């Protein structure tokens, strides 16, 4: 009797367990995508306006061997050899890369940004070490890929990919060499079919760009990226989409175009954005001269402000005069009644947050250890681009437009932040607790608002049917910073406006680049 009831109860618990046990596998939302199948091959993309290249054929790509040549026959034999005994692991790598090279490299870059987005741990004397690109593999690892750094990294990789694919498309149209599976019917198309010419390989162009850009952006990851490059190129060849000679030419072209961007990056002032202790002190002095309470770090020990000279970085869309012209008027004086009211409003907002508010805060937080707000907008864009069936070159162009807008939003925002050097709500009233970490830079204007509003402007132009959705997402991202207690309302309101103005520069470029 007793044993019977014991078993009954145990069975009941087992049943509960089985019911709740159904969720023990987690997969990425882009894990099982079909091969990229462009609705339009954008065959004229060789004539689109590049960003740094003066001409699509600035870098010469030699004519390919004829498909009837012994060299090409050897290329085809290599593919046949692979296809003779393809493993499921090889096929899954083919499937992964076939979903789109721009998408996959964008995801890998987001991965690296998240990996390196960690503020350095303090020294024993309370100072902070500064990551250095000249001292790789030593702590603190270079870079600290915080939001401005990340915005710039996404922009350089995307812009270089775009220029390289414009050149790639130019040569594809010039040489019109078919894909291996279209030349030889015994070769299977294991990663989907395309009507696009094969030489030079667009996938290899993207791999070459990525590999080259890492020297600058994530020097500790050159080996990792090289491994991904080989994986992508191997997959392209195994799938029958590209011959060895398509890949070799593509990678070389990608690397050459990337070198142009690296040269620009070395001179764009980002290397000086950390500033010096004198620079840091000058911001306080300047604010005090205007009778303003200067921003101070709310971390213990106090951390130097994040990339205070990032506002001086050379933007892709806005030049230094435009950066100044985009600067809004000042926030309320720190001694004014309206500042007191704003501080009280911030205090009242965080006192009793609703669960929906904390959800919004966490959804948009994109703080340390994440791919940052620009990365979040890359993720949002990528998800929508997948549904648009873009060609690789249009993927690259749209990502470049988005990320140039994000980088320039970062530049303009950082210029404003350090021009006004305005304190965070918690500095004005320490009773203001926050629902996410307080970013270590001045309050006015909100970076989330600027990144989001700039992104919404360009994405709404690219996919007009989603413009309203992007606008409300951006508004929610801005609101999240108010709910979190880390921004005044005005930081976000003004940030949204200025962000849109920056985004409009990208919209303007989009209307002029020949792709619409």
């Amino acid at each position, binding site marked *: 009797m*007793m044993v019977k*009831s*014991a078993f009954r*109860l*145990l069975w009941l*618990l*087992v049943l*509960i*367990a089985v019911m*709740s*046990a159904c*969720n*023990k*596998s*987690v*997969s*990425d*939302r*882009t894990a099982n995508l079909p091969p990229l199948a462009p609705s339009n091959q954008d065959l004229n993309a060789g004539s689109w306006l590049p960003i740094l290249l003066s001409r699509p054929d600035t870098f010469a790509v030699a004519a390919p061997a004829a498909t009837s040549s012994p060299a090409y026959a050897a290329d085809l034999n290599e593919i046949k050899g692979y296809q003779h005994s393809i493993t499921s692991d090889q096929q899954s790598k083919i499937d992964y890369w076939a979903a789109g090279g721009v998408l996959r490299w964008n*995801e890998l870059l*987001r*991965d690296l940004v*998240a*990996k390196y987005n*960690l*503020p*350095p*741990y303090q020294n024993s004397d309370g100072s902070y070490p500064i990551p250095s690109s000249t001292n790789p593999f030593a*702590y603190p690892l270079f870079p600290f890929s915080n939001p401005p750094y990340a915005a710039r990294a996404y922009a350089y990789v995307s812009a270089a990919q775009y220029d390289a694919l414009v050149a790639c498309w130019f040569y594809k149209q010039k040489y019109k060499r078919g894909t291996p599976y279209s030349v030889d019917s015994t070769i299977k198309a294991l990663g989907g079919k395309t009507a696009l010419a094969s030489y030079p390989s667009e996938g290899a162009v993207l791999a070459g760009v990525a590999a080259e850009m890492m020297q600058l952006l994530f020097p500790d990851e050159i080996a990792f990226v090289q491994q991904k490059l080989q994986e992508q190129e191997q997959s392209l060849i195994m799938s029958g989409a590209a011959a060895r000679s398509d890949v070799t030419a593509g990678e070389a072209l990608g690397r050459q175009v990337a070198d142009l961007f690296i040269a620009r990056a070395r001179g764009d002032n980002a290397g000086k954005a950390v500033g010096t202790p004198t620079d840091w002190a000058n911001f306080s002095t300047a604010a005090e001269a205007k009778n303003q309470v200067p921003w101070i770090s*709310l*971390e*213990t*020990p106090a951390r130097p402000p994040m990339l205070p000279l990032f506002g001086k970085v050379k933007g892709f869309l806005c030049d230094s005069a435009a950066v100044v012209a985009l600067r809004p008027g000042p926030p309320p004086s720190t001694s004014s009644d309206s500042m007191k009211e704003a501080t009280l409003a911030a205090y009242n907002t*965080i006192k009793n947050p609703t*669960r929906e508010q*904390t*959800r919004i805060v*966490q*959804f948009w*937080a*994109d*703080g*340390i*250890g*994440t*791919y940052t707000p620009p990365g*979040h907008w890359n*993720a949002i864009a990528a998800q929508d681009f997948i549904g648009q069936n873009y060609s690789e070159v249009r993927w690259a162009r749209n990502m470049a437009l988005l990320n140039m807008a994000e980088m320039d939003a970062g530049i303009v925002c950082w210029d404003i932040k350090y021009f006004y050097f305005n304190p965070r709500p*918690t500095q004005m009233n320490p009773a*203001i*607790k*926050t*629902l996410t*970490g*307080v970013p270590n830079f001045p309050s006015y204007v909100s970076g989330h608002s600027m990144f989001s509003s700039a992104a919404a402007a360009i994405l709404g132009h690219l996919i007009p049917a989603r413009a309203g959705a992007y606008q409300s997402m951006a508004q929610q991202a801005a609101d999240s910073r108010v709910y979190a*207690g880390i921004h005044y309302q005005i930081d976000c309101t003004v940030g949204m406006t200025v962000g849109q103005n920056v985004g409009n520069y990208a919209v303007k470029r989009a209307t002029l680049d020949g792709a619409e």
Partner: protein
Amino acid sequence: MINTKTIALLAVAALCLLRPMKGFAQTDDDALMMAKKNLCINPTYSYSSWDHYWEGTFKRNNLNLGTVSTQSVSLMGNYGITGKLNFLVGAPYVWTHASAGTLAGMHGVQDLSAWVKWLALSPKVGNGVVSVFLLGGTSLPLTNYLADYLPLSIGLHSKTFSGRLMVDYQLGKFFATASGTYTYRDDITVDRTAYYTTTLHQTNKVYMPNVESVNFRTGYRSNRWIIEALFSDMITLGGFDIRKNDMPFPSNKMESTMVGVHVKYVTPIKHLEVSAEGSYTVAGRNVGQSKSVDAGILYILDFSKSKTKQP
């Protein structure tokens, strides 16, 4: 939480180190049973805090958190279906707080825990008695609280299911109890759409590694007093280390070794017992080095027609 070490530690595990409520006269990790048709009502207050934690294997403090404390008030009941089959259920209200920095504390109702405890065998061995128990337990989040906010979230918001084998040996007034527990943890859903572990995950679902734990307790046990020393050890079967200066995450690899003392006293007042416990985390990984105390009272309601003697 009447849930044991295991589940508590999970919840805890995180840096928030919520302790299991153990002031229970007859809990899910002791070798005591409620008599048939007796119900033990057990409110417990618990306080736990730490100012050092392990970031992976690196032990550190954090001046932007100061001392992280967790308080909870729990209510649980243990009903004797028979003298050999008990049903335990309970839930806590939890508050968290950081003494420094800007991060806001959280509070709310956490997880419902339920256990079935079965005294399967109790043969005499030598001059003593061996008791073998089988237990099955589950925990279910009662509210939609924020889990991805360590170290200040009130729990990990994972549904769990645990199986435990426990063996007790009593010789005169001295005893020793050992148990081992395996806890299955369900995936959780977080508010963000991507997160980094050792690689980027583009999903709001988080795989939670399962947990193994052992518990050992020994001491003096009479009808009036229980005075025992405690040792427990838990480990997640997977998960990843917190990187230097990163935030903790619910699916971190977590390990914790604790020692403690537990005292229970059956008062002269009929049906009333009191209980207190202190414990200390001596070693850990991706958890706070918590010091915990709790105190509870136990009131026994007897629904049997013929009064049964309390164990």
